[in-house]
């Protein structure tokens, strides 16, 4: 079978792998966005004790390899009685790792909101939680969208790590197919093409968003 014919014949398996990749990315991002927001809020509110824990959390998960983190989740969770599927373990690992990054993005966004907004909120008699929810966070959100978008793309690419904990996403599927057919070159090149063709346009979009956000900020300063 020629290379092209072979690649065409495995398209359904590759498509399945891609679906799992996208699912893992989406679920991981959901975790990263929620956990990261919590961590960022803790840091911005400068809660005693918890703030330090948050700072250490971010430093720890940024400085340690995702691969080892995944191993830890895979082996440690069952010991505490949490038995999850390999897919969920991977998603948790991805989500927690990227929550350290999204927390920093959120923090930058939250700190950019002018101090006056906080004061206006408390002058209206709102409690901190309400100020955050109704005033600060909505204003913080727009400028950080490109940053979060970048991490979404990174997570899509790093979903490949899940192949190490027996999840058959794109890389795992490719390895499996290559091991049985020995067509390493064709399969791995196709793998690279798939990742590139999805991540590069997305990163171009994010760059456009960045430029628009920067222009918006300049216009706001001018008016």
């Amino acid at each position: 079978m020629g290379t092209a014919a072979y690649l065409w014949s495995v398209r359904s398996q590759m498509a399945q792998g891609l679906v799992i990749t996208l699912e893992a990315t989406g679920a991981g991002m959901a975790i990263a966005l929620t956990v990261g927001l919590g961590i960022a809020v803790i840091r911005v509110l400068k809660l005693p004790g918890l703030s330090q824990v948050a700072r250490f959390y971010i430093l720890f998960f940024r400085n340690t390899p995702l691969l080892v983190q995944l191993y830890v989740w895979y082996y440690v969770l069952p010991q505490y009685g949490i038995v999850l599927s390999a897919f969920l373990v991977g998603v948790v690992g991805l989500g927690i790792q990227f929550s350290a990054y999204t927390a920093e993005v959120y923090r930058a966004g939250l700190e950019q909101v002018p101090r006056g907004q906080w004061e206006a909120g408390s002058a209206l008699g709102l409690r901190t939680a309400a100020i955050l929810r109704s005033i600060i966070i909505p204003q913080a959100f727009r400028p950080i969208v490109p940053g979060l978008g970048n991490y979404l793309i990174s997570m899509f690419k790093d979903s490949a790590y899940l192949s190490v904990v027996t999840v058959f996403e794109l890389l795992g599927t490719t390895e499996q197919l290559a091991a049985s057919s020995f067509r390493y070159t064709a399969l791995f090149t196709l793998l690279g093409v798939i990742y590139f063709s999805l991540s590069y346009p997305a990163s171009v979009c994010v760059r456009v968003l960045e430029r628009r956000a920067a222009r918006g900020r300049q216009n706001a300063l001018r008016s």
Partner: protein
Amino acid sequence: MRLSPYVIHSALVGLYYTVIATVLSCCLAFPIAFIVGILRVSRSRTVRGCAMVYVEGIRGASPIVELYWAFFVLPLIGIRFPPLEVGVLVLGLVGGAYASEAVRGALLAVDRGQWEAGLSLSMSRSSTVLRIVLPQAIPTMLPIFQNVAIDMLKGTSLLSLVTVTELTRTANELGTVGVMSFSSGYGALLVIYFLLSLPIMAGMAKLEKYTARYQSKFVRRPRS
């Protein structure tokens, strides 16, 4: 886990390969970053384009995918390297691509007047870049360089997947053999990587202090 000579020996071998791989990858990545970063602000569209192809190509997939590709495909097209060399090569190219973005951004952040000043003194474009613009750009690059250096450290754990006996693979083997339990072993491994990252951060902080003397008011610094 008994700290038998076997365990100690394995751990030291693992540590050695981790450190060596990190250092070699950085030695490859940072020179590439400067070269590619400078090429990316070249006047020639072809040069800029080639550099862009390199950077965007590497950034298109994650390092684990590129490592597997290099490990499986390169031998089939005749390029046979030992696993450590392949790993260092891939990590260096990946780190170089990301760090070159920092170089490019920092060079572009230097005020246009500095470029013009150099050219008006009839310095060649390369002299202008190297002796006027680049030194002013360096403090801006360093934070991202720190991230790239730590990414190199984290990347060495990937080399465990291509049969390099660095720390992660050592932990794999010790766990498989039964000398240590996987959960506590990998937990300890995380702590070890964290501790290894601290000197990198300290070193970068020292470097930032040292290059602070090149900090000029002609650089648009991002409001942190």
